[in-house]
């Protein structure tokens, strides 16, 4: 019987949750030796779990498990800039599968690839020459926490086509396997001056998703939620009806391009859910209207934060929705967000939640 597998990354290792009915869940022990994990995914192509780890002591690497978490190996072979480059790999931020490539996004901004399922890595692209790259390529701008590669959107039908996000700069698309890039930020709002000489970068894209129709994309931005109906070539803001324009996490329904989810949070220093009420917002009409989803979520003193890779949706006929918080709770909905159950309460701070259906 197929199982639903949740892979949860935290500041103190990864955790796996499995369920046959999405009601009763079993939870693993802490995995990956308690290392800080920034993103962890199950990859169906290699039937493996990958976890992007970065330790203050021992640097960055990718843990991999080929037996659903029973045993793990770690590699960082090739996952570094040349010694004379000036840039350093401070953190591995995000992972994705694109054909025969395992993509690894790092800080300082760069994309590494592995073609042997995480045993060795090589530098694929730094988006060199893109508008603004002279800023993010300057080693002086490499303070931790700034200007990394924070996400990918891959195309299951074309491994050479994918989007990436440079934190604080914007989204870029390649159609030739990262040989060349095009900024995809047309129409986005920007409440600050553009970088000198450039109008197509300087945007703060938090999370980008593509629906089952590749023309329809959505994004949660630093300022606003936005929709594209032309595969990212232009964007229209759809924030109206939400309690605020700031958030990180977002997910699109796997079978319905009109249905999309976000978790608005306060855009100040707190970055927790509005009014202390845990709420996921859903649109059924591509952003014309929004419905708050609160049934089963804490509504009193619930000052919860969710990061950009902290929400996921599965591909069951009736999709399940999942999110993990920066205070260690995991919430699950088996009915497209209509009702929620808390399946973990005391994990370390959660960086990412990934879901897959496995045999």
């Amino acid at each position, binding site marked *: 019987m197929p199982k639903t597998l949740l892979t949860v990354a935290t500041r103190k290792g990864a955790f796996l949750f499995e369920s046959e009915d999405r009601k009763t869940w079993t939870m693993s022990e802490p995995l990956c030796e308690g290392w800080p994990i920034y993103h962890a995914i199950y990859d169906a192509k290699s039937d493996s779990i990958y976890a992007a780890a970065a330790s203050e002591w021992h640097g960055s690497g990718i843990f991999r498990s080929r037996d659903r978490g029973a045993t793990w190996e770690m*590699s960082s072979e090739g*996952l570094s800039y040349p010694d004379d480059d000036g*840039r350093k790999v401070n953190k591995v931020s995000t992972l994705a599968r694109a054909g025969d490539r395992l993509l690894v996004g790092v800080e300082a901004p760069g994309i590494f690839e592995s073609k042997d399922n995480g045993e060795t890595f090589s530098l694929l692209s730094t988006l060199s020459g893109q508008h603004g790259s002279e800023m993010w390529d300057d080693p002086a701008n490499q303070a931790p926490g700034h200007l990394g590669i924070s996400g990918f959107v891959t195309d299951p039908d074309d491994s050479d086509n994918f989007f990436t996000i440079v934190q604080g700069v914007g989204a870029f698309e390649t159609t030739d396997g990262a040989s060349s890039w095009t900024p995809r930020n047309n129409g986005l709002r920007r409440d600050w001056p553009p970088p000198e000489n450039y109008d197509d970068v300087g945007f703060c894209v938090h999370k980008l998703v593509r629906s089952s129709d590749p023309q329809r994309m959505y994004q949660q931005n630093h300022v606003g939620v936005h929709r594209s109906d032309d595969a990212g070539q232009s964007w229209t803001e759809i924030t109206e009806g939400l309690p605020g324009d700031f958030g990180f996490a977002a997910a699109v329904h796997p079978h319905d391009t009109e249905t999309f989810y976000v978790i608005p949070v306060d855009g100040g220093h707190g970055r927790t859910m509005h009014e202390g009420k845990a709420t996921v917002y859903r649109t059924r009409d591509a952003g014309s209207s929004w419905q708050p989803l609160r049934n089963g979520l804490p509504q009193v003193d619930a000052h919860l934060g969710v990061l950009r890779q902290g929400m996921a949706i599965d591909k069951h006929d009736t999709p399940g929705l999942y999110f993990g918080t920066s205070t260690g709770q995991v919430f699950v909905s088996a009915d497209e967000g209509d009702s929620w159950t808390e399946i973990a309460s005391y994990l370390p701070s959660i960086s990412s939640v990934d879901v897959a259906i496995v045999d």
Partner: protein
Amino acid sequence: MADVRLPGTLSPLFPGLPRRLEIEAATVLGAIDEIERQWPGLRDRLVAEGPTLRPHIHTYVDGERSALDAPLAAGSRLDVIAAISGG
């Protein structure tokens, strides 16, 4: 031969790695490279691009804080320390 002491945080990644090894090398980096030959992947856990020591890793030769190019003499003691950090 230098008497090399490694931090316990490495042990989970390299099953069987002893905390204490006898290594023939001329410098701190040479000692780490020699250990790398026996335990592939270990160098990257201690040394970043440059090469430089990772910011929260310190090395001491005979009790003196030392850089990667510090010389090792026969009988030197090399302590590789993971800084007190985190929480």
